[in-house]
């Protein structure tokens, strides 16, 4: 039972007229987002990112872009896998004081999944079902009705897995502006609901933050120009300069160390608080080369560095000598990182091979053989 249904029951028990319609949502349109200034929100975003050891390229510019976009409308956060998009969306909502609902798009999404439709019940009858956007809009209106400063936002993860125009096309008009005048004129048409519930108004404070993966070839759907205009796009790149990569390596080590202490029940003092130099040196050379446009140009994100750190800590039980840590890292690179390179074309695989070659910047025999195997397999198909 949803909170809304519990509230309806309570209202009925207290002798109030239960809201049989969604007409009341029209009254929630007018409340605007509450924040002091975009600059203050941007500062809040940076602080939240720091607090969670989340590393983004040019954090000041990134935070300002996101704060500006969300102050006026909906946002698409695009970037390669492993850059923390999903976590960052939560940070953005928190910075605006919004609660977040989330949904992950799939290739077979349609308007049923986004707006809603009729769904068979156990008794065989058809009952209205709200799609993810309509449901989030309703919850946002409920939240604002309870407290005007508590909106609910929707995160749509991996939005470009869906056929975007097909699934979201009916929302074109609604999404085109967050002005009160526009939204009061443009309720969502819930054709499948009873006449009294057919119109659902979108609060001014409602936002959609979508994430899209702009690297993986399995993500084939693109935004039409019509829908692109309804969102502001902010890219989440990966750092390529050595100083930023080094900071990212240190931050991910801190995350991995916390994870290890909790996961293994280890004593925090038994796991060094500073990242081991030997591993840092290898990771710095590797990730700088991988991400560099003139080299492999493979935008591997922080999540991949974090995975490597976790593997090293597990293999060395939190603290080993340089040799043991380097060996654990090499195994992790071979077994966890290299298999993710399947989408690289032959030329870039060749450059990746060069990185791990005996005379390359990060010589690693095991990783070199794994890349060679990958390249040979790709050419076979």
């Amino acid at each position, binding site marked *: *039972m949803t909170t809304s249904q519990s509230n309806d*029951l*309570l209202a009925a*028990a207290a*002798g109030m007229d239960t809201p049989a319609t969604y007409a*009341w949502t029209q009254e929630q349109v007018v409340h605007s987002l509450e924040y002091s200034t975009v600059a203050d929100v941007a500062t809040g975003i940076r602080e939240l990112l720091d607090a969670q050891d989340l590393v983004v390229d040019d954090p000041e510019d990134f935070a300002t872009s996101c704060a500006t976009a969300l102050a006026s409308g909906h946002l698409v956060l695009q970037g390669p896998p492993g850059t923390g998009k999903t976590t960052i969306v939560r940070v953005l909502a928190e910075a605006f004081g919004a609660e977040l609902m989330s949904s992950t798009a799939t290739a077979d999404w349609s308007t049923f999944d986004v707006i809603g439709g009729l769904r068979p019940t156990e008794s065989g009858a058809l009952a209205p079902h709200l799609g993810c956007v309509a449901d989030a809009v309703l919850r946002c209106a*409920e939240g604002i*009705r*309870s*407290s005007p400063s508590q909106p609910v936002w929707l995160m749509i993860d991996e939005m470009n897995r869906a056929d975007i125009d097909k699934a979201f096309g009916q929302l074109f008009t609604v999404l085109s502006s967050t002005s009160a005048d526009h939204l009061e004129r443009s309720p969502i048409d819930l054709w499948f609901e009873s006449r009294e519930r057919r119109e659902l108004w979108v609060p001014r404070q409602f936002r959609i933050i979508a994430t899209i993966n702009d690297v993986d070839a399995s993500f084939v759907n693109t935004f039409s120009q019509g829908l692109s205009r309804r969102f502001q796009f902010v890219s989440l790149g990966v750092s390529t300069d050595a100083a930023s990569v080094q900071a990212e390596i240190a931050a991910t080590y801190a995350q991995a160390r916390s994870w290890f202490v909790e996961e293994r029940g280890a004593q925090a003092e038994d796991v060094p608080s500073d990242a081991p130099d030997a591993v840092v040196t290898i990771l710095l050379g590797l990730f700088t080369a991988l991400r560099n446009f003139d080299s492999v140009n493979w935008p591997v994100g922080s999540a991949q560095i974090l995975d490597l750190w976790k593997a090293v800590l597990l293999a060395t039980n939190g603290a080993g000598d340089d040799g043991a840590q380097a060996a654990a890292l090499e195994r992790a690179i071979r077994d966890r990182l290299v298999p993710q390179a399947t989408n690289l074309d032959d030329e870039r695989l060749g450059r990746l091979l060069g990185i791990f070659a005996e005379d390359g910047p990060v010589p690693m025999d095991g990783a070199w053989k794994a890349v060679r195997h990958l390249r040979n397999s790709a050419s076979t198909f």
Partner: protein
Amino acid sequence: MMRVKPSLLFRDGLDLWLGETFPKGVGSRPQSQFTPLCPFRSSMRTLERASGFMAQIAAGQTIAGDVGQIVGDLRSMALVEPGKMSLTPLGTRSLQTWNALLSGRQVSPDVAEVVRATALVRAALTLNDTDYVAMFKFWAELRKFQRGSFWWQDQYHQFFPAYFNHTDSRGFNPLRLTLRAAGTIGEADDWLELADAGGLVNGASLKGLIEQKIDGWRPGGPRAFMKGMEANRAAATGATHFYATTKEIWA
């Protein structure tokens, strides 16, 4: 929040107050002016339990269990007629509303209990049941000082207002004096210290009684009933306030 030391606030007035409040000695409850914050009695701690017995009585079925105790408790809640094995108008209306709202729905026990309490309070106010009206007025008075969740937070906050809300012949009332002075009832230990300072009344210890009552207190039913009163209070002030209050009720 200001810390209240009741024993310092009214050290001198306690003995007379105790003597007048418990004229027959410190028994199971004060004998006069007692306005509780829930209608429950010893065997009837929740409305879910009451509803089962009420349905059996309404259907003319035999009640399983200690019939005398169960029916006695339902009568003291004004849900069963005195001297008869039938529901009062309040019992009938409450049971009908509970069935209409909850039958066939998947509702969590906590939500259902608050819904039952809300409907019971609503019915009692509509039928102008004297005891429930007094409880509701007392609740509204307490709400002027603190939010609902302050009063239903634990057994101490549920228990102390009713037990110290007695005015002696000089106009001395520990609860009202404390609320006027500090806006809160303060700490449980302070009240126990006050009760201890009063010593014995007719051979029984007020502190001992309070400790015994607190130990046996089951806060779930009283909490839901207070929430039911709060839902009715909020409903009377309009939809906007009502829906704002639901957050606190479900928290």
